[in-house]
């Protein structure tokens, strides 16, 4: 239950609404609970055969009371439930912006389905707590207090006796509560698991189909599905007792009123009108009493869900930076000073020293898994170094604001991710203010123009989720264009020409040669063509720099680079022999 305390700031923001709401709950109840007294008067006078007023007067009073009560009830719902929707809005916004502040490492270890389940299912459960649950708690409270006061005044002995079952009720509620909490949590977890399974299945449907794994996927789903049902059922077995017990207890209260209250009438301690008013009050108390059970459920669900949402909100952004409004523009000189990095204790980069002068191009080569991409990711601070320091223009990265740092970098990741928007919007993602001329220039540079001419909708072609409607090379070139659109001081290309043909590659490289001038560039590639005329080439092996120099020097070194070169050359010599 402590989890719900987290909601305090949100509730505080709408405390005005809640205060107004609660006043209206109070007023609603006052006017609702007066009307049985009118009924009592009418019946007593009827029984005595001495009407002081015509019946229609009593009838109209009942209607008028209901009208007044109705206005208050309207306000109560509108204000309180409305506030809960606003809190939902705030909470969802906060969740999103917090997600935005979390680092890539968090998304590496958290499944999308898990986050989605929290942002949808759990958020809704919390909303039900803030809105209906709070409203019904207030309502039940006032109904009980006002109702009891009036009943006690009518006949305190009968009231006390009739209320006997109610303490039992709250005891039962308490006992069920904690158990329900666990059961509910188990259900939510299973729901998230199912969501994740479905999501993976759909995103990987190509693989499932290509390897004919449909049956296996269905079997996997069946197991999860069955478990889900079982968890639901064990919840219901317990929860299902709730309403019947409530019904039974309120029924017993009614029974007491009928038996004992009837006796009081017979013995002349209660009027018949009072008796009818009592039955009427009990009827009014029944629903709020039953609502307790429902509310308990909502609260438990709300708490369990809030806990799961808090897990995200409590996640500390591990990449933090000072917010500096004014900063000198980044020129692009880079220095890695004794940098080491480990993902989860597994060292990936060790003691990297590397200086890239402003406007210089440095190429990084190395076997798969040698740490090239990791090194590149450290520059825009997708991850932070474990040891050592990276400096930009002589200033440590950590002392720059993230937006300032990243605005100077154009990054083409090794694996392309496109949003399901149009080609144009995807490129503009790099810079929304891009003019059409600039766009055209960029498309030319990244060799997209021929493809765009082929598409019936040109720039406005929709690329599909992750770009499924495009070919591999088209996706990659859009990612290049997106990075160029930033007009970056530092251009980072991570194996960014792996999916294009030689011809296109050559054209892009030629174009970039011009573009690169004056910009600091880091290029990773497995192909010599892309790295050959870098100002400097660095070889990474198992996370360490083992060679550095220019092409001419390195090919004679007898190391990784020269082996790479020989292999290419060998092919050519074979060619010559034939």
């Amino acid at each position, binding site marked *: 239950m402590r989890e719900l305390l987290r909601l305090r700031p949100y509730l505080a923001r709408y405390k005005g609404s809640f205060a107004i709401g609660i006043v209206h709950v109070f007023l609603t109840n006052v006017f609702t609970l007066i009307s049985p007294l009118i*009924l009592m008067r*009418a019946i007593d006078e009827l029984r005595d055969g001495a009407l002081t007023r015509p019946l229609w007067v*009593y009838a*109209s009073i009942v209607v008028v009371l*209901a009208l007044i009560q109705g206005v208050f*009830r309207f306000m*109560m*719902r*509108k204000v309180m439930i409305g506030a809960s*929707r*606003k809190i939902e*809005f705030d909470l969802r916004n906060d969740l*999103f912006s917090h*997600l935005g*502040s979390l680092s890539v490492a968090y*998304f*590496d270890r958290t499944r*999308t389905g898990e986050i*989605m389940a929290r942002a949808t299912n759990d958020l809704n459960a919390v909303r039900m707590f803030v809105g209906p649950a709070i409203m019904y708690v207030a309502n039940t409270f006032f109904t009980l207090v006002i109702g009891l006061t009036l009943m006690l005044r009518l006949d305190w002995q009968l009231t006390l006796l009739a209320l006997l079952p109610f303490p039992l009720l709250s005891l039962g509620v308490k006992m069920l509560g904690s158990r329900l909490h666990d059961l509910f949590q188990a259900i939510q977890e299973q729901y998230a698991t199912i*969501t994740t399974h479905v999501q*993976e*299945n759909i995103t*990987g449907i*190509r693989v499932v*189909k*290509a*390897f004919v794994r449909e049956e296996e996927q269905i079997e996997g789903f069946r197991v999860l599905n069955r478990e889900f049902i079982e968890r639901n059922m064990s919840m*219901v077995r317990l929860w299902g007792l709730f*309403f*019947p017990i409530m019904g*039974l207890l309120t*029924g017993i209260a009614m*029974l007491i009123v*009928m038996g004992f209250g*009837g006796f009081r009438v*017979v013995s002349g301690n209660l009027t*018949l009108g009072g008796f009818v008013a009592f039955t*009427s009050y009990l009827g009014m108390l029944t629903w709020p009493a039953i609502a307790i059970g429902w509310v308990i459920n909502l609260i438990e669900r709300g708490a369990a869900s809030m806990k799961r949402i808090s897990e995200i909100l409590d996640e500390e952004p591990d990449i933090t930076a000072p917010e500096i409004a004014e900063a000198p523009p980044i020129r692009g000189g880079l220095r890695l000073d004794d940098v080491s990095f480990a993902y989860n204790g597994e060292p990936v980069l060790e003691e990297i020293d590397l200086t890239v002068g402003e406007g210089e191009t440095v190429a990084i080569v*190395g076997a*798969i898994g040698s740490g090239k991409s990791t090194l590149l990711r450290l520059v825009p601070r997708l991850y932070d170094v474990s040891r050592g320091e990276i400096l930009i223009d002589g200033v440590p990265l950590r002392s720059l604001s993230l937006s300032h740092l990243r605005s100077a970098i154009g990054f083409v990741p090794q694996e392309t*991710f496109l949003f399901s928007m149009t080609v144009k*919007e995807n490129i503009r993602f790099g810079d929304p203010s*891009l003019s059409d001329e600039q766009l055209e220039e960029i498309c030319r540079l990244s060799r997209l123009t021929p493809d765009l001419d082929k598409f019936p909708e040109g720039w406005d072609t929709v690329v599909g989720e992750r770009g*499924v409607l495009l070919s*591999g090379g*088209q996706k990659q070139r859009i990612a290049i264009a997106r990075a160029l659109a930033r007009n970056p001081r530092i251009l980072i290309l991570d194996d960014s020409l792996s*999916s294009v043909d*030689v*011809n*296109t*590659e050559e054209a892009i*490289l030629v174009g970039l040669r011009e573009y690169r001038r004056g910009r600091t560039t880091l290029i990773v590639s*497995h*192909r010599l*063509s892309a790295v050959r005329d870098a100002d400097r080439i660095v070889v990474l092996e198992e996370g360490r720099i083992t060679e550095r120099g220019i*092409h*001419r020097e390195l*090919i004679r070194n007898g190391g990784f680079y020269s082996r790479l070169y020989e*292999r290419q050359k060998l*092919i050519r010599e074979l060619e010559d022999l034939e």
Partner: protein
Amino acid sequence: MSWGDPVVPDEEVLQKSLDWDLFRRLLRYLRPYRGRVILAIGLLLVLSGLAILGPYILKLAIDRSIANDSLDASLRVSMLLKFSAFYLCVLMLEFVTRYGQMILTTLVGQKVMYDLRMEIFSHLQKLSLTYFNRNPVGRLMTRVTGDVEVLNELFTSGVVQIFGDLFLLGGIVAAMMLLDVKLALVVFTVLPVIFIATGIFRRRVRDSYRDVRTRLAKLNAFLQESITGMTVIHLFGAEARSFDRFSFLNGDHRDAHLRTVFYYAVFFPVIEVIGAIATALIIWYGGRGVLSETLTFGALAAFLQYATHFFRPIRDLSEKYNVLQSAMASSERIFSLLDTEPRIVGPEKALPFQPFQNAIEFDNVSFAYRDEDWVLCDISLTVKKGERVALVGATGSGKTTMVNLLGRFYDVQKGAIRLDGIDLRDMDPHDLRRRMGTVLQDVFLFSGSVDRNIRLGDDTISREEMKEAARIANAHTFIERFSDGYEHELQERGSGLSTGEKQLLAFSRALVFNPEIFILDEATSNIDSETEHLIQEALERILVGRTSLVIAHRLSTIQNVDRIVVLHHGEIREMGTHQELLRQGGLYKRLYDLEIRSAVESTGTDG
């Protein structure tokens, strides 16, 4: 703002208020559990009966005992005790019945949900890629989870409770008529007002719920995409921009909800006021009846109780109507998924599985993903068993598309593809794909162990075979480096591995199934040449006697194939061995020269 709507084309907002065909179809899912459903409805009948009995006992108690001044006190008290005992029995019975009924309906609901989820999920597996291209992941997920959950509400609290409410209403009407026809009719004069009020309410709420649903779908689609693309958002400093967009969608969603809140806030008090009018009518008309001694006090009290009981089911029914409403919308979407005919299916009588014997043949094949935007034109190509063929060509020229067609992920529009002379369309697509081992251009790994990612859960493949495959693909070395080796758990999409490592896993996966036909689509594009060379050597041995189709941009990797096919703008431009093509001096030679020159001839030092 450049951030447009997440593209959710044709999010079907088909809304039919209460479609009986749909409803009947939904009911069909209850058929396997019809015994239990009937029992549950029976229990509901009992429950309504008991609910009607309560006020009637009260009436008897008042008339016979409490307000019966003609009897002497002790007799009245003993009668009162009898009525109380009777009432207690009613309560106990109600308790048992209600619990039983609740468990029964939930159980049935859950079982139906289980069946539905299985059916949707299994059906999804049969649908073609065209369908998946068109529908965002988020939307399909909603079908299997969210929409089914909505239906659950329909089955557990909706349909059955609606019966309960209807029984109760009927019972109360009958009881009131029995007690006093005239008074009952006077009370019923409020009914038309109720019908009008609920009618208006339902229409309004339906419309705003429709908005809620579409806006929520958009909101979630956007959220999902933002989560998966968070790295890109970070890299391009788009946090603020995407937040604005999100906040906008979120606000839209909130506003739609606020409208429904308003309608509900109006509706409930209105019903209460109408209820009060009914009470007023009872006081006024019933009171006159008491005065003229045509109505007893007991009957008056019972009427008052019935009147309150009367409005609860009515209120519930209009709330249920919304459950029903959203359930209809959900079921419509679910059924439209289930009704989507799998387009890629085998014939009625698929030919028995036969080993690949002769040749694969593309016979004048033309293909377009959409309408008439031809991606492949008049492709004719025969690949004989045991032959190794390479496909090369500029990006976007249609190489991957050809491979897609061969695996029958799409059907050709013109011409035919034949395997051993049999049109692919006359084969069970599963049989067809089982012969092929494919490394897709876009690597996809599941979260789960390395083992599962290679064997894909196929236990007929031994661990040794798996390791052997990993060795050939050169994946073994890096897998062994994990402390838990093949049991190492990968995260979503294999994050936690380098791109090259992922590709090697995908490679091992294709090898382990020991296919007759190998399809390698840019299978080594992210691999360094040294590793690539090792793989190539190992492949030399494996590919002997097997048919393979290789797509590569690096021409150096395909020189040893038997034939090279050069694709250009969806047409076959050149075809022949490496040597032949070089001699021809066409497109291929140009590409090849370019590659050799750019790779080897450095700026002035060499040769």
